[in-house]
């Protein structure tokens, strides 16, 4: 690795860097040095690195243009390790740290000697906007091959290939006043708001707060402006009601003043977050801020001028030149030509001169610029060429000269002979565009102002813009604007702000600016050397002109056809110039071609920060029953049911081999049918229903009847939506005359509680009834099988006599010395007791059951066995046999429908619509495979005529299918068109492997059709 320690462009003094310390870093394999306080960009410029990247489409060499978020070119790949890779880091916003490793994102074999550049040079002509829409169409079969090569040249950086070692989090913030930006306007606003006692958050995207005050030439109360900033920041830092967030970008402004602030907590320290006090810290943090009032003090971005060759390294924004000199002590070149349309630009020339470098000329497009800035430049002996502009930059890997000529803006013409000025740097200023991004996130369309030559934000209630963001640029006015906004915002949240005395700003008076966007060239735009508008996406003025010629007349069309503004800089530099060019081509005004709409994010944010802590083990809650530990210890495999973890089956080690699911389930099924099994059924939803109208309510919400259900009894119920489609089911028990316990499906619990409340609160508030969830309060242990009574009898004081405690009864008493409610209901068809105890006792009861149950062969079983057993009985699972298009009648459950109930219960009316009355609806049946060894595929489609050509008419599908150890055969539940009248008929199931299975339509009840076993 070669070394370069020269920092040849570092000035001897000045800047806010710590020269006492040196930081080494690597760029494109070369080692360099910089100082704390540098950004990667300033350090690269200090070291004379001209080319930082290759452009996306034409692979042209590119250098640093800007000093902040608007930088389009210096987008690099950061990272020395695989897991530490960060794609697409903007070098102007990356603080330098020791050991920083980065490379340009495009360029092969490297950005200096790039082969693709040749393609760009030769092929550039053949790649006008939209060229891919017009080519690569023949032959059609080749598109996927063409595409592979197109994709290869796409993209900027690359994704890491390893999981992120870092963590991220969120902080939910609430404040009265959020101030975005801590430049002069933001600090003034924050100061006013803070003194009112309001809760204030100030966020600023830069490493250091102060904004333009940090590199200002102006004075406040005759002191350098940054001193005032320091003083204000000190006061704010001492206020308990103020939160200062540096390195924090407001990246999205959402409805009702919800703003996301992305705080980069460690990105200035390393590529991964270092430990803090020996503990992990988050790499970055998203503040989710709900603000009462928002003040946008986001400043303005300088617009570059668009001229030929304006992308050659060494072309910079005028303001960026000043920032590099004054803030970082770096002069990014030796000989400067400044091309400007306004007075602001002059600052760069003055700073350049003061840095001891040569200003070749200021080229000012205005015919007779006058005013204090111009005078100051003249006083410095700087040559000013008026009525002219830089029409073309010359040079390959670095600017070598500027071609300057007189131009006529209105006629869009070069009117004089071009003069070539030798230089290595061209700074340009086309004026400023207020940073309106956040305001436009809210959906408010910005407004064009001719006097400002820029869009200013339109604002929704509760938000103000001040300073540069509002098109106010003179420092004194900016401060006053800020204070006013701060006072107003505080007042709106009920806080009176005391008056704030502002320092006296001293600055040079500005003269009026000229409206110059694209600089004309001697050749027409389509023939001139490329004039770049959007540097990142290689969009040129010619491209925009071509788009308008082809009929793309709205700016939205132009943007999409050319890709202007779709880069990672989101068109911060180029969009207004692009609109102006489109407007000129269409002979319209700028507002007539549209407005510019920005979307979040203001600057890109890592997925990790948006995700926060909701990843890995905390991606989604895992809900556990009180018996979870036991299931884990006993080797259960788990099934995800909603957020619950339910035991799926319990594979055992048999002869040193772990059972397959099939083996385990066969064993568990046999245990239940022959002896006794136990299931943790705690996940079923349980809703406590109390009130004199509880019974009436049940009658309205369920399809079946509830008027006669006696205390001590349970009943199965089916619930429909008002479209007549089954939505839930479960057993409800009458605990007392006015008191019921409803159970719901595991997945439906929360939705059903809300469903009950919906009807009660919106339609039937007159019914006296209350609902409360008791799902988690009870643990439910289901013991089922012929031995269930014997086992339970050993440990309960409840009379289990079959005459006094019948099927569909419930009783309370003690089980294993714990108070329990025991329900004699059955989902397996066997003698079953569902034992409910308070969850904290569940483990003890469960273990006692096992202690006593061993001799009966008590076997734990999971959801898979539960499904086999219930399917053998023809019991449905809502969501498996049903899919939102199935009525109770389709299920053959007319026995569960109270047609003559007095109230027209939910779902009833829909059952008599023409389609729900239709014959030939899909109806639930059993399927018996002709070959008992066959277990049909769940989801297999059923046909009547397997010889029919494709598309083959389908008659239904298999909803559930299992091997039954009891029947020693495969069996299935299915829905089949007109199935209820087709018992005994044969259907066919053509499968993907070419086989066609045959099955007989049978009753869905395969086992114990008379239901004798559950009644024993």
């Amino acid at each position, binding site marked *: 690795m070669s070394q370069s320690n020269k920092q040849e462009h570092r000035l001897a003094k000045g800047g806010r860097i710590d020269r006492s310390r040196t930081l080494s870093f690597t760029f494109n394999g070369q080692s360099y040095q910089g100082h704390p306080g540098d950004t990667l960009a300033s350090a690269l410029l200090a070291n004379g690195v001209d080319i930082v990247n290759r452009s996306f489409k034409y692979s042209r060499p590119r250098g640093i243009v800007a000093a902040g978020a608007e930088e389009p070119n210096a987008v690099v790949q950061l990272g020395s390790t695989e897991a530490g890779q960060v794609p697409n880091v903007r070098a102007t916003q990356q603080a330098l740290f020791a050991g920083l490793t980065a490379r340009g994102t495009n360029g092969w074999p490297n950005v200096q000697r790039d082969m693709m550049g040749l393609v760009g040079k030769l092929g550039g002509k053949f790649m006008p906007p939209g060229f891919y829409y017009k080519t690569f169409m023949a032959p059609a079969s080749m598109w996927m091959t063409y595409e592979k090569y197109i994709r290869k040249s796409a993209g900027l950086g690359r994704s890491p290939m390893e999981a992120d070692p870092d963590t991220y989090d969120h902080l939910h913030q609430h404040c009265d006043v959020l101030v975005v930006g801590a430049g002069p306007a933001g600090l003034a606003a924050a100061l006013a708001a803070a003194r009112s006692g309001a809760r204030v958050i100030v966020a600023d995207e830069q490493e250091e707060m102060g904004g333009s005050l940090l590199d200002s030439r102006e004075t406040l109360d005759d002191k350098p402006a940054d001193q005032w900033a320091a003083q204000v920041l000190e006061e704010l830092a001492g206020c308990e009601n103020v939160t200062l967030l540096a390195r924090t970008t407001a990246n999205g402004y959402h409805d009702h003043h919800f703003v996301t602030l992305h705080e980069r907590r460690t990105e200035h320290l390393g590529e991964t977050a270092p430990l803090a006090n020996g503990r992990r810290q988050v790499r970055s943090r998203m503040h989710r801020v709900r603000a009462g009032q928002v003040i946008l003090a986001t400043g303005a971005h300088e617009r570059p001028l668009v001229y030929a060759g304006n992308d050659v390294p060494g072309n910079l924004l005028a303001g960026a030149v000043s920032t590099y000199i004054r803030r970082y002590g770096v002069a990014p070149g030796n000989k400067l030509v400044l091309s400007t349309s306004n007075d602001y630009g002059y600052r760069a020339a003055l700073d350049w001169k003061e840095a001891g470098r040569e200003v070749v000329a200021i080229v000012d497009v205005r015919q007779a610029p006058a005013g204090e800035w111009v005078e100051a430049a003249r006083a410095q002996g700087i040559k000013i060429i008026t009525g002219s502009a830089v029409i073309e930059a010359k040079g390959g890997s670095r600017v070598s000269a500027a071609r300057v000529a007189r131009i006529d803006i209105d006629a869009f013409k070069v009117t004089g002979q071009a003069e070539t000025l030798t230089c290595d740097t061209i700074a340009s200023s086309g004026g400023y565009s207020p940073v309106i991004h956040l305001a436009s996130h809210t959906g408010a369309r910005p407004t064009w102002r001719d006097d400002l030559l820029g869009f200013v934000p339109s604002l929704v209630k509760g938000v103000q813009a001040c300073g540069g963001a509002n098109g106010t640029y003179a420092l004194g006015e900016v401060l006053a604007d800020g204070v006013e906004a701060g006072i107003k915002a505080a007042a709106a949240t009920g806080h009176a702000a005391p008056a704030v005395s502002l320092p006296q700003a001293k600055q040079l008076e500005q003269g009026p600016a000229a409206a110059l966007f694209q600089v004309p060239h001697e050749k027409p735009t389509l023939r001139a050397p490329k004039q770049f508008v959007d540097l990142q996406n290689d969009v040129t003025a010619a491209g925009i002109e071509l788009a308008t010629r082809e009929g793309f007349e709205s700016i939205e069309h132009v943007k999409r056809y050319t890709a202007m503004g779709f880069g990672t800089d989101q068109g911060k530099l180029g969009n207004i110039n692009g609109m102006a060019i489109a407007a000129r081509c269409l002979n319209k005004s700028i507002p007539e071609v549209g407005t510019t709409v920005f979307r979040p994010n203001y600057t890109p944010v890592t997925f990790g920060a948006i995700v926060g802590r909701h990843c890995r083990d905390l991606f989604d809650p895992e809900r556990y029953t009180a018996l979870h530990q036991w299931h884990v210890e006993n080797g259960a495999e788990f099934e995800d049911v909603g957020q619950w973890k339910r035991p799926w089956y319990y594979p055992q080690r048999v002869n040193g081999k772990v059972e397959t699911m099939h083996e385990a389930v066969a064993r568990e099924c046999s245990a239940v049918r022959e002896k006794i099994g136990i299931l943790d059924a705690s996940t079923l939803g349980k809703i406590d229903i109390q009130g004199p109208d509880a019974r009436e309510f049940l009658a309205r919400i369920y399809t079946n009847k509830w008027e006669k259900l006696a205390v001590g009894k349970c009943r199965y119920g089916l619930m429909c939506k008002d479209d007549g489609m089954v939505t839930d089911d479960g057993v409800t028990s009458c605990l007392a005359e006015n008191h019921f316990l409803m159970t719901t499906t595991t997945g439906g619990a929360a939705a059903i509680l809300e469903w009950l*409340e919906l009807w009660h*609160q919106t*339609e039937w508030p007159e019914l006296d009834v209350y609902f409360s969830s008791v799902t988690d309060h009870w643990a439910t242990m289901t013991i089922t099988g012929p031995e269930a009574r014997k086992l339970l009898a050993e440990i309960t004081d409840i009379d289990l006599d079959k005459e006094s405690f019948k099927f569909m009864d419930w009783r309370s008493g003690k089980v294993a010395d714990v108070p329990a409610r025991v329900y004699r209901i059955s989902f397996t068809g066997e003698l079953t007791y569902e034992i409910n105890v308070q969850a904290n006792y569940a483990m003890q009861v469960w273990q006692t059951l096992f202690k006593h149950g061993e001799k009966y062969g008590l076997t734990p079983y999971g959801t898979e066995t539960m499904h086999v057993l219930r399917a053998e009985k023809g019991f449905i699972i809502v969501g498996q046999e049903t899919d939102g298009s199935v009525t109770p009648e389709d299920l053959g459950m007319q026995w569960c429908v109270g047609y003559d109930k007095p109230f*027209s219960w939910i779902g009833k*009316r*829909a059952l008599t*619509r023409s389609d729900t009355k239709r014959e030939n609806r899909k109806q639930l049946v059993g399927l018996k495979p002709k070959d008992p060894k066959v277990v049909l595929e769940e989801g297999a489609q059923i046909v009547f005529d397997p010889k029919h050509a494709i598309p083959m008419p389908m008659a239904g599908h298999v909803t559930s299918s299992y091997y039954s150890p009891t029947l020693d055969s495969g069996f299935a539940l299915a829905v089949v068109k007109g199935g209820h009248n087709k018992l005994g008929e044969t259907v066919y199931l053509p499968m993907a492997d070419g086989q066609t299975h045959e099955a007989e339509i049978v009753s869905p009840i395969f086992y114990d059709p008379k239901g004798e076993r559950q009644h024993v």
Partner: protein
Amino acid sequence: MFYIYCPYCGEHREEEEFHPKGQAHIERPKEPEACSDEEWGDYLFFRDNPRGVHHELWVHAVGCRKFFNVTRHTVTYEILETYKMGEQPSITADSQNQVAAASRQEGVRA
């Protein structure tokens, strides 16, 4: 993300605590059996869906679990009022238009 005033909790709460439940003031026909298929289908499925002032049903799901009504502009997303079940809106599309018309007459920029 919305900031919604729950009329039962008496304060603004984050949208994440709420669920939207569709158009407000949809009443279930009192005599379902007397409805034609068309009327029943209208009740089940057909909605106003305006571009502008809309009355919606929301529930404060992670909160007091109460259903309530929201008058909201479906383009600006501004919440104009929230009100309890059983109450009627004080702001409607018509009333908003009247306000707009009045301010136009007075030359006020709305």
